[in-house]
């Protein structure tokens, strides 16, 4: 599309979009650096006491922010939940990474077959795969809770990994099969003539060629798992398996907690997603937009 548009309107739209999508995140960063009594005081300027990193220090070291040591009444605003954030980030990392790896291992072969072969039961199994995510998660929570309880997996990362893997698999298969289908058919015909078995065609031709797409799809599974809340909350229990989404929700619903501390926790939890956004843009979106496997 030709970009003959007026630079002023372009700038205006860009600013509006930035404000809408990025604004709340920026606010949180600001809030994490400003003590509560400034934040909550409608009269004073936001930067009256400057910026400080006390909140961050508390989360990582447990050292109480100066603002709260001075006034005993404010001690209640400190929540231990904020100190769970770093550990929960590690939990989230482990869970999301495992879900991502499992998704690719389990999903890629199926995606390859769906993309390139006809077989009995193909329609039915494909329909099942694309319809299954339409069952709302809330409808599944109770049965899955009871199922994992009987398997002894409640309160473990394994249980959450299992559920997240299964919830993301339909998307993984769908996206990967789109990528596999985009590969030129002649490549696989050549492979057949070159004595490749079905598995060798998959392993030596399709997989190496799809590597960027597989990375992208993996990131997608990672994101689904990282931001999932309901199963994570029900299945992690009170144990140390809590991922960041659960800890953040607990923190958010604690009405007493200090706003600046809450924002600190939020911002710490956002940092990995900021990294993700850049990665996702690079691999998933650019890949989706350019769209082809060059032959």
């Amino acid at each position, binding site marked *: *599309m030709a970009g003959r548009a007026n630079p002023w309107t*372009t*700038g205006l*739209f*860009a600013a509006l*979009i*930035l404000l*809408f*999508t*990025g604004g709340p*995140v920026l606010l*949180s960063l600001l809030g994490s650096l400003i003590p509560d009594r400034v934040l*909550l005081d*409608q009269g004073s300027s936001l930067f009256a006491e400057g910026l400080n990193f006390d909140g961050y220090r508390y989360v990582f070291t447990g050292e109480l922010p100066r603002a709260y040591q001075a006034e005993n009444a404010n001690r209640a605003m400190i929540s231990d939940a904020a100190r769970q954030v770093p550990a929960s980030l590690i939990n989230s990392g482990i869970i999301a990474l495992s879900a991502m790896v499992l998704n690719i*291992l*389990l*999903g890629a*072969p*199926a995606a390859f*077959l769906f993309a390139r*072969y*006809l*077989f*009995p039961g193909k329609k039915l*199994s494909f329909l099942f*795969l694309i319809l299954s995510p*339409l*069952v*709302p998660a*809330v*409808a*599944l*929570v*109770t*049965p*899955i809770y*009871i199922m994992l309880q009987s398997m002894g997996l409640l309160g473990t990362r394994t249980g959450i990994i299992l559920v997240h893997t*299964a919830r993301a*698999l339909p998307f993984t298969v769908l996206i990967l099969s789109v990528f596999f289908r985009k590969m030129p058919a002649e490549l696989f015909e050549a492979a057949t003539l070159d004595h490749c078995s079905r598995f060798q065609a998959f392993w030596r031709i399709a997989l190496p060629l799809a590597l960027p797409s597989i990375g992208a799809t993996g990131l997608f599974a990672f*994101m689904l798992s*990282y931001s999932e809340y309901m199963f994570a909350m029900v299945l992690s229990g009170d144990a140390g398996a809590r991922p*960041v989404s*659960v800890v*953040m*929700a607990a*923190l*958010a619903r604690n009405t007493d907690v200090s*706003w600046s501390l809450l924002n600190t926790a*939020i911002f710490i939890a956002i940092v990995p*997603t*900021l990294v*993700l*956004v*850049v990665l*996702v*843009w690079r691999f998933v979106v650019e890949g*989706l*937009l*350019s*769209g082809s496997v060059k032959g």
Partner: protein
Amino acid sequence: MWEIRRFPVLWLLPALLPVALMTLYPVAYALWTSLHSVMLLFPGEPFVGLDNYARVIQSNYFQDALANSLAFTAAAAPLVVVLGTLMALFLRRRFFGVQVVRSIVLLPWVLPGAISAVLWIWVFHPSFGVLNGLLRNLHLIEGSIGWLTSPRLAFVSVVVAHVWTQIPFTVVLVMAALAAINPETLEAAAIDCKSSWRRFWYVIFPEIKAMIVVLIVYNALTAFTSYDLVYAMTGGGPGTATTLLSFQIWRESFSMYDFGAGSAVAFIVVLISAVLILAITRALPSDLFGSE
């Protein structure tokens, strides 16, 4: 495409089995539970037929929640698709810094719902929220507006927050659909159509119609079954103003320990979702589904 004579178990089972385990079994279980009285506080699981359904449907809570969920869906889904499409069209342009804007747009996508909720509480909070602060500083209001405490405004607020979380996915998919349009088609359109609105309506829109339909269905479902964001923002309140159906399942099952009633609500949600999909796909012209 080559044919395989038998169902390729080894290739497909690793993907199908976990999905079946986490979908088919729970759905069957929910169906069974919804027909029995399963309460943690009372031992035994007697068959009660449709009692759970009857009880649930007659409760005021359910009717409020259903009305809220339908209103929420009707407001949020079209808003996400329209705004997302506009943003996608805009972000296809080339201008200085477009890469940065494109990245920032994705940000809400990767945030857990609970975090998004806190961010938006921070915006809408009646006493120290940014929105009221801004309005006060511009001397548009005195005092404060109860964005989260007045029933109607609370509903608007959660819709805005929900739209915010859902827009990135829609933007990305519409951009992908736009990228798939043959550039020569667009060049021809640039020559043939004087106004950019005509260019969109007669040339671009027909090419992305299929994707738009998929996105409307997807967003309707997401909105209808949405749970965590709204709950974290308002707890369903004030009163039942923002209590959604999904929250109802949650409450019946986990705070009332009435799994039978919870499953009944869950099943009703599944049924209404199915009806929604059918209704939406029927309401739209059928030629959208002609091609794969």
